[in-house]
Structures are given as structure tokens and as C-alpha cells.
């Protein structure tokens, strides 16, 4: 089934205080689609003045929204989810146009996960509670939750709506007001979402300001009146965000990427069954979202004893990846998100070749005849060793680096020989091996006999240089609120010191 490029307005505005507000200095930039490099819409090129306005409006809203009941906030989450579900096809087409990822993924994964995220946090906030302890017979300690007030969020371009949902849902659920900045490569899908859900939200509770990082993101991240900053992106900006947070003495949560190992043990080849078929797909999942995933399984570690037979099947599956129109549901791989990302990936394919890695398949750009101006790259598999740069740097493209290992110890040594620790995968029919290896991997997520599944309720975050904090789980509620301890004495007698 084929969808098509959706209709957009010529120009969008910022969404501040429940209204569409033009950028104060009147500047806009052109947003283009990576599918065909064509114009989508003009987007506000905002600056510190617009951020100041959004933060001010957010605090005005916070006076009441911070105090709403959990029942109201829970219902808000459910209503947002329902409204998105009613518009899932439109939002999927918008996301495909804005980001370049295929409808196969936006309609099949991104948007269903967005909906699930809001429903999950709608459930969490209604069912959880603080705690009360009897410290002694006369003393009661209450741990009470309160929202932080107004929080800042900066989201990436690889899953524009889903990463927005991961940040918006726990913040709204806990009663915070938000100023959020989408990535400048993919600004329009969140604006279309606000057209769809804006009327459900108390004005000022969710404010969207667009613009470039240095002009708009930095004033937001360093603003003296935001009480927390949440960021997903790379390490230099992550460090700047934490630096600004330190200057303002506020918390920051960061998710900064990975170089995730995907480990295939020999037992997967013991039978030629549906599980082996699943493992082969697990190998090919490096191509999901054109490899632009923080947890892209971009290092495949394969046990020596099965390397030849397993790789033969895997490469055949990679070469069966269908290309073509991103709006067509059968198209498996679509466009990279931007020209500069395309250039960077091509430069890493060049580095892999220069380092002496062997190209097993792909290794070049893909000519999409329907969209000759879009940014398309062949799924590429290199064989090499773990000290190569293509094994150590997150390329953020459809580029897989494959190596072999002898035994469990060597698999773990290679898996953990990375500056990152976000995702990882292991495939085995041996339950004891699964336990040993999943315990030994230094990463915030270990997928066992699966990969790239992101159900709400399964925490997500990094070890090592992959950042700080856990999203996609109720534990992020505490990332958006204070805990106030109310300590009550029922004893009429003084302490006795004075």
C-alpha cells in the first residue's frame, strides 16, 4: 500500500501559551524533506527572546498546572494518546516526509510507540503514590512528590515524535510545564502534532520553540528559570548541557548514544527453525531507521564456529532489503535524515575502506530513481576488528561492522571494549550462557534473543559515555519532580537540648 507526501502549511509558528506565535525577530528557515530534498515549510528561527517568552508563559501556566490532580493528568495522557491514534496515518506521513524514514516504520513502530508512551505514563501517574513510614511510635515520615515547575527539553532528529513523547509524557504526567525544542532538521512533525493535540492541553503547559542550537537551544538549556534540562544527542552538546545545568544548579538527564554490540553464539545454528530466522533478522536490524538509532546494533560479534554459514544467510537477508518509495509500506529502507548526515556516513564508509576493513556488501550510495535528490545509502557490512574506528564510533548510518570471537570471555571483552554502553544484544539457545553474558555486558539495555523492541515500561539509558538517566519507565517520573519529606512529630515533649 502506498501513502503520499502530506500537505503542509507554507509557514509554521512557535506554539507558546496555547497559541501560534510568530518569532519575535520575524526570522524563518526553510525545512526540507530528505526523501526528495524538496521544500516542506518555513519554520521559526527563534532566539533567546522567544525562549524567554516561552519560559514566562510556561511559569504562568505552572501556577495552576503544577497543582492539577493525578486523575486530571492521567486523563490528559489518555486523551492525547487517543487523538494521536485517530490521526496515526497523517502523523506517520508527516514524520516520513520530515525525517526520511519509511512509512513501514513510522506507521508500524514510531507512532504506535508514541501512543503507548502516553498511555503508559497515564497509567503510572494514576496508580503510584508516595510513601509513609513510622520512624518510631510518635514520628511519621511522608515522602511527597512535587513537580519541578518548568522544564526544558531538547530532542533529536532520528525519532522526532517518539523522542518528544519520551520526554513530554513523564514531564506532563508529573505536572510540569514544558518548553521543548525539536531538532532543526526535523521540526515540523511536532508542530503538526500540536495542531492535533493543542486543544487538549492547558495553555502554556507545553510550549514548542523552533530554531538552531546555538541561537535557540543554548538559551533554553542555560535559562535561569528552567528547573531541569533533558537532552538526547551527542557528547559535546551533552557536556555543554551539563555544564549549563551545573552553572544553574539544576539536574540534567542526557542520552548520548552508543556503539552497541550484537552477539551471536553458536547455538543459534543448532537448528534451522523460526528462531534462527529471528536471529538473522536481528543481525539485519542495523538497517532499521537507516541505522540512525542510538542503539543501532552496529557491531555484530559472531562466534567463529558458525561465522561462514551464519554470514551467508545474513548477507543474503541484507541484500534482500527492498528500496524505493519511502511512502510505500513494502519499502524496507528509506532516506538518511539530512545531507550532512549522508556526507558523514559516506566519510565513514571511506574510513572503513582506508582502515583495511573488508566490504562484504554495499559500500556506496544508493541511487533512488524516483527521488534522485534524496539522501540514500546502501546497507553496508564491513568485516574488521574492534580497534578500527568503524567499530568504535557511532556512524549513525546503515553501516555494520562485523568481527568474530572464540568464546564467552572474548565476546564480553570485545562487547565492553567501547566508550559507550547504551544497547546490546545477545542471541543464544543456552539459558546459562544468556545469564552469564547479560550480567557481564556494561550497557543499560541488553536485548536477549530480540533487538530493537522498545515497549514502554522497559527502562532505557546508558552506562559509561552514553549519558545519565533512564527514560521510557516510571522511574523517569522522579527525574521530573522533587521529593519533599514531611516529618511529623506526635510527641508533645521537647528534644531537651535547650
Amino acid at each position, binding site marked *: 500500500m502506498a501513502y503520499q507526501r502530506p500537505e503542509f502549511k507554507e509557514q509554521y509558528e512557535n506554539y507558546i501559551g496555547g497559541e501560534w506565535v510568530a518569532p519575535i525577530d520575524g526570522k524563518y528557515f526553510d525545512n526540507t524533506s530528505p526523501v526528495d530534498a524538496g521544500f516542506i515549510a518555513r519554520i521559526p528561527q527563534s532566539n533567546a527572546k522567544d525562549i524567554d517568552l516561552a519560559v514566562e508563559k510556561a511559569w504562568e501556566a505552572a501556577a495552576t498546572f503544577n497543582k492539577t490532580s493525578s486523575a486530571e493528568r492521567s486523563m490528559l495522557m489518555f486523551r492525547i494518546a487517543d487523538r494521536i491514534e485517530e490521526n496515526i496515518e497523517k502523523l506517520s506521513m508527516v514524520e516520513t516526509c520530515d525525517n526520511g524514514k519509511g512509512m513501514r516504520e513510522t506507521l508500524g513502530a514510531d507512532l504506535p510507540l508514541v501512543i503507548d508512551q502516553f498511555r503508559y505514563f497515564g497509567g503510572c501517574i494514576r496508580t503510584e503514590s508516595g510513601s509513609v513510614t513510622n520512624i518510631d511510635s510518635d514520628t511519621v515520615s511522608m515522602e511527597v512528590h512535587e513537580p519541578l515547575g518548568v522544564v526544558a527539553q531538547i530532542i*533529536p532528529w532520528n525519532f522526532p515524535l517518539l523522542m518528544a513523547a519520551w520526554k513530554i509524557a513523564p514531564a506532563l504526567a508529573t505536572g510540569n510545564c514544558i518548553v521543548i525544542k525539536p531538532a532543526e532538521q526535523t521540526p515540523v512533525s511536532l508542530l503538526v502534532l500540536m495542531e492535533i493535540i493543542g486543544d487538549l492541553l492547558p495553555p502554556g503547559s507545553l510550549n514548542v520553540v523552533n530554531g538552531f542550537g546555538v541561537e535557540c537551544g543554548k538559551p533554553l538549556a542555560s535559562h535561569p528559570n528552567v528547573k531541569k534540562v533533558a537532552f*538526547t544527542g551527542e*557528547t*559535546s552538546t551533552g557536556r555543554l548541557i551539563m555544564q549549563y545545568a551545573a552553572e544553574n544548579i539544576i539536574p540534567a538527564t542526557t542520552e548520548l548514544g552508543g556503539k552497541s554490540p550484537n552477539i551471536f553464539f553458536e547455538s543459534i545454528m543448532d537448528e534451522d527453525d523460526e528462531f534462527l530466522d529471528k536471529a538473522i533478522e536481528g543481525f539485519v536490524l542495523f538497517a532499521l531507521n537507516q541505522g540512525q538509532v542510538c542503539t543501532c546494533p552496529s557491531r555484530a560479534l559472531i562466534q567463529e564456529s558458525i561465522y561462514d554459514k551464519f554470514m551467508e544467510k545474513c548477507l543474503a537477508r541484507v541484500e534482500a532489503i527492498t528500496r524505493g518509495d519511502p511512502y510505500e509500506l513494502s519499502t524496507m529502507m528509506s532516506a538518511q535524515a539530512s545531507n550532512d548526515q549522508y556526507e558523514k556516513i559516506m566519510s565513514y564508509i571511506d574510513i572503513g575502506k582506508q582502515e583495511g576493513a573488508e566490504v562484504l556488501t554495499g559500500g556506496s550510495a544508493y541511487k533512488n530513481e524516483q527521488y534522485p535528490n534524496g539522501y540514500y545509502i546502501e546497507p553496508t557490512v564491513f568485516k574488521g576488528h574492534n580497534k578500527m574506528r568503524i567499530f568504535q564510533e557511532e556512524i549513525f548510518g546503515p553501516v555494520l561492522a562485523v568481527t568474530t570471537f572464540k568464546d564467552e570471555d572474548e565476546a564480553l571483552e570485545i562487547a565492553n571494549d567501547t566508550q559507550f554502553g547504551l544497547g546490546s544484544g545477545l542471541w543464544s539457545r543456552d539459558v546459562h550462557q544468556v545469564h552469564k553474558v547479560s550480567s557481564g555486558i556494561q550497557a543499560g539495555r541488553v536485548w536477549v534473543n530480540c533487538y530493537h523492541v522498545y515497549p514502554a515500561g522497559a527502562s532505557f539509558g546508558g552506562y559509561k559515555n552514553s549519558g545519565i538517566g533512564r527514560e521510557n519507565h516510571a522511574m523517569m517520573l522522579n527525574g521530573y519532580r522533587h521529593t519533599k519529606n514531611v516529618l511529623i512529630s506526635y510527641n508533645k515533649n521537647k528534644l531537651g537540648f535547650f
Partner: protein
Amino acid sequence: MPVERVSVTQAASEVIDRLRDEHGELMFHLSGGCCDGSSPMCYPAGEFRLGGRDLYLGDIHGCGFYMHADQFEYYKNSHTIVDVVEGRGASFSLEIPLGLRFLIRTHIFSDEELADVRPVVAAN
């Protein structure tokens, strides 16, 4: 003269000149990780707080070029060329409002070059 670890193209030098006119002295820090990872980030000098594990690799067109030690572990054998392309990277790098993005191109050192390559030093 030792072999340099970093260099810059003419096109990128011209962009640096434009940015320096507007923002004053500049610095570069190579990012890692997702989205715009492995990209040269251009900031006003001193904007990015260099830490005890950042390394100084050399100057490009009058700007210090820095990288975290964890990342340099895999750049020991690489000559890094800072170039510029049209595009719109995210991040707080200064060139992005111009519709341009710095990016790195790489030359893997030969054994002879490696024997004479500039030593890296702590950033601070």
C-alpha cells in the same frame, strides 16, 4: 616539522573567518555518540569547558582542536581534515545558522607519517 594530526580545507577556513568576525576567537571539540556525533563542534573560545581528559591535537586556521581521550584512543592513526558541507546539523556549533556543517574527512597515517606525528598534549 612534525606531521600534523589536524588540518582544514580552504572552504572550511573561509567559514571559520566568517564566524570569527562575528563571534571572536573560536575553538573546536570533536563530538562522539549519537545524532551529530563524530562532528567537529565550533564554539566561541572558552565556551566549552575543557576537562582533564580532553586532549589538544593542534590548531586549525588559528583555532585549537580538542578531543576527549577516550575518543582519541581510536584517532591515533588518523589525520583529521575539517571540511564543510551544506546541511543542517543539530548541536550548538556556530556554523549551523549559515546552513553549513563542518564535518571531518580522514586520512589514515602511513607508517612513515606515524613515526613523525605531532604528539598530543593535555588540553589544559
